[in-house]
């Protein structure tokens, strides 16, 4: 055998690793940080689990049909709500970096929700994109309060801000919101801020025209609207915008002209938007679709997105976030999740998102897009196992992992839960009960008896005999039960609590000793109640069933001895049974002489009585 000069041994358990160090007798201990211990994560994990459970319920109730798209979208939004709550919590405590990470995750989740969950591959994707950019890039909540403060007379800086907000709304396609803000940029007559670009009256006219255009932009609701109607009304609206532009309605006001150019979807407007550095490529993409290609389907996005990204000069060095979006546009769920794992090494996202895709089933009518969903079930299983293990390995929150494993098929579900609960050392009775309940729920009979056995052994060590006995019975372990009962019988005073006694009676006896204990306690109770006749009857029953352990014989004798002056009349056969017991089972030499005398007296008297009675009966019969 090769003698090793050093041997780099280690072991790991959950989030701990301990290693030996070469040439040293010191150990290295590495306590790996679990993500559940980060700020606000506990709540995040619990809330996510609640939504996950909800999703499983929906899946079950709709089965074999897929869960309706609206429900899936709602569930997805619940997950996003949880992420955003986390973001807000982190921002509140000033951890802006981590907040940004989760904020990005929400951004990406939102986009993936559009592609994989809520939009229909055969219908325009625009409305979802409008919503997406609104959620992520709308500065209203920041700017409007500032505006409110400065009312009624807005300073030039404020007016500039309002214009920027108006532009943003226009880029995003939220023209009605833009229209609502126009009055703020229309200075009142006599106002020192009215610019000299035309009288305020003419500006007012222009604003009216613009407002009209903005308010008339057609909107499309994928659930209720007809897309052909939308297509034609958009075409006529667009024509109207072009007319207005050609009529130079907004001539003289550069802001409104710019907006009209954008509405017309012409290059001048778009490149001005870019040069003014007013938007990110995401917003630019949405603007492009709003005003040039409003009816494109989700599958066409990638082509336009590539062009936009290239125009922005980002083509060669895409951020991970953008790479993820592109994979999503390709409907490549596997790569989406791989990239997400690469930047956030946590199976949370993958687990919850893929589960929603799974629950929603395949789209029923898929024309242009070949969505390969065959990878979804194994992906889902893989991530649930990963995430579930992570949660169950973390002692404070192990219970939250159970519903995740429960969402898998048998026999996987059973194996996983069984393996994990074996590793949980119940610290309290309540935790032990919880483990037992879970083991029972999933028919984990050997784990159940293992847990009960372990608790029984622990209680035994603490001297809690009766509690240990209850657990040993639950475990169905006859040798342990016998062992504990023996200890109670021989080492204790055999006093058993009434409640335990009740449980003993109701429990299926897994050990003869247990039956004896139960019977013996009954006997003692009867003795205490001075119901000697029945007590003796009980004792004889125990003797007949041959259950009395040898070591307890002397206690039985003691009890019998106390009867000698109580004038107890034995029933038929009882004397015989007792005599056999005393002489054959116990043996006279094992009994104290004084005790034996009394015992003998008791038995002999009873025997005499019996004979007399028999004799009398015979006499009378004759």
């Amino acid at each position: 055998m090769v003698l090793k000069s050093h041997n780099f041994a280690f072991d790991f358990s959950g989030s701990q690793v301990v290693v030996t160090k070469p040439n040293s007798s010191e150990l290295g201990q590495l306590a790996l940080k679990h993500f559940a211990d980060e700020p606000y994560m506990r709540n995040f994990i619990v809330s996510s689990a609640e939504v996950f459970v909800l999703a499983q319920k929906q899946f079950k109730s709709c089965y074999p049909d897929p869960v309706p798209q609206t429900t899936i979208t709602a569930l997805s939004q619940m997950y996003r709500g949880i992420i955003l709550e986390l973001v807000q919590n982190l921002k509140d405590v000033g951890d802006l970096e981590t907040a940004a990470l989760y904020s990005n995750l929400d951004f990406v989740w939102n986009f993936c929700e559009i592609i994989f969950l809520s939009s229909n591959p055969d219908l325009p994707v625009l409305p979802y994109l409008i919503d997406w950019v609104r959620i992520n890039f709308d500065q209203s909540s920041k700017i409007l309060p500032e505006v409110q403060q400065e009312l009624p007379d807005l300073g030039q800086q404020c007016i500039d801000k309002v214009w920027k907000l108006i532009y943003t709304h226009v880029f995003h396609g939220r023209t009605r919101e833009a229209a609502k803000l126009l009055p703020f940029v229309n200075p009142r007559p006599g106002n020192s801020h009215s610019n000299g670009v035309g009288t305020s009256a003419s500006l007012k006219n222009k604003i009216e025209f613009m407002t009209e255009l903005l308010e008339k932009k057609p909107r499309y609701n994928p659930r209720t609207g007809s897309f052909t109607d939308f297509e034609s009304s958009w075409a006529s609206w667009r024509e109207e915008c072009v007319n207005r532009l050609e009529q130079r309605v907004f001539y003289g006001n550069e802001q409104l002209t710019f907006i009209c150019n954008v509405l017309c979807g012409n290059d001048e407007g778009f490149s001005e938007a870019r040069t003014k550095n007013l938007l990110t490529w995401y917003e630019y993409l949405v603007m492009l679709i709003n005003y040039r290609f409003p009816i494109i389907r989700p599958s066409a996005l990638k082509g336009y997105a590539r062009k936009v990204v290239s125009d922005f000069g980002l083509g060669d060095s895409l951020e991970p976030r953008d790479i993820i979006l592109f994979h999503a546009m390709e409907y490549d769920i596997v790569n989406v999740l791989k990239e997400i794992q690469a930047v956030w090494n946590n199976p949370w996202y993958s687990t919850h998102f893929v589960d929603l895709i799974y629950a929603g089933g395949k789209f029923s009518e898929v024309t242009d897009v070949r969505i390969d969903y065959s990878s979804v079930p194994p992906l889902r299983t893989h991530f649930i196992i990963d995430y579930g293990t992570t949660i169950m390995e973390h002692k404070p929150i192990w219970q939250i992992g159970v519903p995740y494993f429960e969402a898998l098929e048998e026999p996987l579900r059973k194996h996983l839960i069984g393996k994990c609960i074996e590793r949980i050392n119940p610290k309290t009775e309540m935790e032990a009960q919880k483990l037992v309940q879970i083991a029972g729920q999933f028919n984990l009979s050997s784990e159940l008896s293992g847990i009960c056995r372990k608790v029984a052994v622990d209680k035994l060590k603490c001297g809690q005999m009766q509690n240990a006995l209850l657990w040993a019975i639950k475990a169905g372990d006859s040798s342990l039960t016998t062992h504990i009962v023996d200890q109670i019988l021989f080492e204790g005073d055999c006093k058993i609590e009434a409640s335990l006694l009740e449980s003993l009676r109701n429990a299926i006896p897994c050990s003869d000793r247990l039956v004896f204990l139960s019977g013996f306690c009954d006997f003692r109770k009867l003795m205490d109640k001075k119901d000697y006749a029945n007590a003796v009857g009980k004792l004889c029953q125990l003797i007949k069933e041959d259950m009395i352990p040898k070591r307890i014989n002397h206690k039985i004798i003691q009890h019998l001895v106390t009867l000698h002056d109580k004038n107890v009349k034995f029933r038929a056969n009882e004397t015989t049974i007792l005599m056999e017991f005393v002489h054959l089972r116990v043996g006279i030499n094992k009994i104290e002489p004084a005790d034996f005398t009394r015992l003998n007296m008791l038995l002999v008297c009873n025997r005499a009585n019996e004979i007399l009675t028999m004799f009398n009966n015979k006499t009378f019969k004759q």
Partner: protein
Amino acid sequence: MFVARGVKTDHKDLIHDVAFDYYGTRMATCSSDQTVRVWELDAQAGNWNCMANWKAHSGSVWKVTWANPEYGQVIATCSFDRTAAVWEEVVGEGSIGDRVSATHWVKRTTLVDSRTSVTDVKFAPRYLGLVLATCSADGFVRIYEAPDVMNLTQWSLQYEIPVKLSCSCIAWNPTYPRHFAPMIAVGIDESTPEVPKVMIYEFNENLRRWNRIESLKDITDPVNDLSFAPNLGRSHHLLGVATKDLKVVSLEPTMVEDDNQVPSSNKVTTRTIAQCSDHNSTVWRVAWNVTGTILASSGDDGCVRLWKGNYMGNWRCVSILRGDGTQATVEPTSAAASATSPVGSFGNSRFMKLGAAAALKQDVVWH
């Protein structure tokens, strides 16, 4: 990401093995100083306190392992002194150094059948009862059983398996009962070239003996450690092998049902599904987590590496923990020999929000 600290063990010589109990709240160490120490975790302070310390053998103690907690607090050790021993913690005063402790460890049995150093000792999966296996440099694997689990002093040698080559390590397959016959993998550490260094044995219920059903021909370098992954109802088994590099081998039983209806395969198809040389040196130990989602390995490069398989069965290193506890970095590398798609290389890239100027720190946390 993680907290590192040293634990002064006061062992007087090299520590050869360290093992957590089932719950991760106790650990045992064994050393060339012939002693075993048992430690308990102080959860609040996060440090380990030595609860017991005793001379266990008359030679270096190579391995220590815990039995399932339902048998109580029981450990087994094996040593250069040609014996293996089973120890149990009993209530009753013991002493550790100057302190008095409420419990102490007693030897329940010594297993003396080996003619040479006993190199490994492992308890069998619980469904087999209280059973343990040892392997020795004398080329035998021995399987012992304690038929009365309440009495740990009575162990009998049930089977002696002649491997005929010096054995360094054994692993039980922790399969779910009744689906597969009991299975053991044995690692060989002789340096004879071209001889397979991992043997797979399976127990035949009918003949009541252990048969060699396979030897892994891909593995011809001395083997230091082996471990089966927990089986989650897969049709195949996964075995991690620590040898000159890290290998993951899949064993797929070819089902041959015998009359007993215990699928007793007399054949397994084996395939090396991953070969990871990231340690760039000898790999010493391997261990799986509770559900088999993570494989950990330690190597002569002083690192512990954590590996995860994706749903396609490709293995990738997800964490590197340096043995001196100073640093953990994640270096995604393509680990699998059979990987078909390259792993994304964005481990160090930043996930920036909306063109914000501030660079974000990489938030890669372990789980």
